[in-house]
């Protein structure tokens, strides 16, 4: 079956230019007022107010921003010829809340509460990249236990994010059972997050200098239950989707992308790997302790929807493999750096020590000062390269905090994937990009 899949055709960089993306010539004031009416009055057509001849065989369809399959508030303008998509223009910005500007007003202690709300399906990766950038500027070394706790939580987060993707992708293709199963398994992970961090989402758990709290008692058993259950269930998903003819018909050869286009359009994560490029920052540029665990980078061949599906499904299994190694190797010790300038003292010390009280007060009012400098740190989030460009001017607030959101960049591949495909497949292709609008618009 897979041999019949079309291999992406050869390609040159000039083709990615969609040109000036006003899809039709700007109408005159009169035309615009008429076009805004859904049913054009017949009299207007007869009076020659609308130039019917000018409209050739193509049609512009506006999809979103409230379309249920756009995973938020993504709007697409599609130019169609019959049912074939010719051009696509993604329009973003409906969820823009100025988080990069907000970050300039918050101290480094408060920063994670802000960035965690960007990619709300993998909040821990946002906190991680911000904390790593801050620590690189500070020059502090995080204790090993904090590093491994971070890895454990981030991999669990990758599992929950991919489960959420499987659920929504299933729903977009009409498989509501997959939707219910995906949410059911994600609930297990979120339950553990709630036990550890106190919150199901937007945890503010990974902070500059370590993590907010140690793992709860009996965490090994909880993690073990999650690993066993989710791993077992991924084989059920195999039965439900992977071998199902309808699912394969709708995903194989749909939304194909070649490796050259993916690299030229700066795509990362499962989209880049689906085209056959084995690029995973955990392996290529290891951070935390990913060089001490054993895992495979999952790579596709055709760059179509089915490859992206199987990459994400298999990455759940690889993440579980990493989690099991982390449970085995979890070192004892501190879960945050013992530097009173960065880490607030424990509550009981405040009653005993004047010094502790002063440090506590300073950290939570002014925050700690970060040496002048600039740094770019990137981690592999479930969606691709999540980068943080942090500029410090020596005060306790970032001078500039730019987040390179993987969904924001990956959305640029959508016109290339949709071109020449059917409008009925557009929903499946949007879903396979896995955009999180909170991160696209920030």
């Amino acid at each position: 079956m897979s041999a019949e899949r079309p291999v992406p055709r050869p390609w040159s960089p000039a083709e990615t230019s969609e040109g000036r993306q006003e899809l039709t010539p700007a109408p005159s004031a009169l035309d615009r007022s008429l076009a805004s009416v859904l049913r054009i009055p017949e009299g207007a057509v007869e009076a020659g107010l609308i130039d019917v001849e000018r409209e050739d065989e193509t049609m512009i369809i506006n999809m979103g921003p409230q379309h249920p399959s756009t995973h938020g508030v993504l709007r697409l303008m599609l130019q169609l010829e019959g049912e074939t998509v010719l051009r696509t223009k993604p329009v973003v910005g409906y969820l823009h809340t100025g988080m990069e500007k907000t970050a300039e007003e918050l101290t480094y202690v408060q920063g994670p509460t802000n960035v965690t709300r960007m990619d709300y399906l993998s909040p821990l990766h946002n906190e991680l990249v911000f904390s790593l950038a801050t620590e690189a500027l500070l020059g502090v070394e995080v204790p090993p236990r904090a590093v491994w706790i971070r890895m454990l939580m981030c991999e669990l987060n990758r599992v929950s994010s991919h489960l959420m993707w499987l659920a929504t992708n299933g729903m977009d293709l009409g498989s509501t059972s997959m939707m219910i199963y995906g949410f059911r398994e994600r609930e297990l992970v979120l339950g553990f997050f709630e036990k550890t961090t106190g919150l199901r989402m937007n945890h503010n758990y990974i902070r500059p200098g370590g993590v907010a709290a140690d793992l709860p008692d009996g965490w090994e058993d909880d993690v073990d239950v999650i690993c066993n259950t989710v791993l077992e269930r991924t084989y059920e998903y195999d039965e439900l989707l992977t071998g199902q003819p309808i699912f394969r018909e709708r995903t194989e050869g749909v939304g194909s992308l070649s490796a050259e286009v993916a690299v030229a359009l700066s795509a990362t994560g499962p989209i880049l790997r689906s085209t056959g490029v084995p690029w995973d920052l955990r392996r290529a540029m290891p951070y935390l302790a990913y060089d001490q665990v054993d895992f495979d980078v999952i790579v596709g061949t055709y760059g179509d929807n089915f490859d992206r599906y199987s990459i994400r499904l298999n990455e759940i299994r690889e993440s579980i493999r990493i989690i099991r190694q982390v449970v085995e190797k979890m070192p004892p010790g501190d879960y945050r750096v013992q530097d009173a300038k960065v880490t607030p003292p424990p509550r009981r010390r405040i009653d005993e020590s004047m010094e502790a009280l002063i440090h506590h007060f300073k950290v939570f009012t002014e925050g700690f000062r970060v040496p002048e400098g600039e740094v770019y740190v990137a981690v592999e989030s479930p969606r691709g390269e999540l980068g943080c460009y942090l500029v410090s001017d020596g005060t306790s607030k970032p001078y500039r905090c730019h987040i390179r959101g993987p969904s924001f960049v990956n959305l640029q591949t959508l016109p290339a994937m949709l071109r020449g495909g059917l409008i009925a497949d557009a929903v499946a292709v949007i879903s396979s990009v896995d955009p999180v609008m909170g991160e696209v618009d920030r």
Partner: protein
Amino acid sequence: MTQGPSGQPSEVAVEPATQPAVVFVHRDEYHDRIAQLKAEGYEMCADLCAVDYLSHPGRRLPEGVVGERFEVVVNLLSLSMRRRVRVRVQVPEDDPRLPTIFDLYPGSEAMEREAYDMVGIVFTGHPDLTRILMPEDWEGHPLRKDYGVGRVPVQFKEAPGPR
């Protein structure tokens, strides 16, 4: 793992992540230098953003680089060499223009639009330089340091504005 279609090595060896090199370029040589780096094997433009240094003029810069108000930072990534390089360009306040690198890296399209929208850097030659995050008719560039936060009235339709 098999050999990818693009010819990248399929098995990857572990190298310690080092802080990337930083290259300072003058605005006139910016496009040529990026083209040269692309030829050297930096296949991907990972990130492009702009910084407004209005309230931090005395920042540390190497010899011979005159700090201007704006700075555009381009992060290039080489998949084959597993290396990053950061290009920093100074852009003056009175003429915030820079040639686009869209012809080299089509992936910089949205990032340049974001830098234009947020900081107001004009990328000449960009195919569609319009606002991407803010509404089309928005005035001002929010990530500039002299952009008044809290001085902008909340805009409700039909409501009598403060104007």
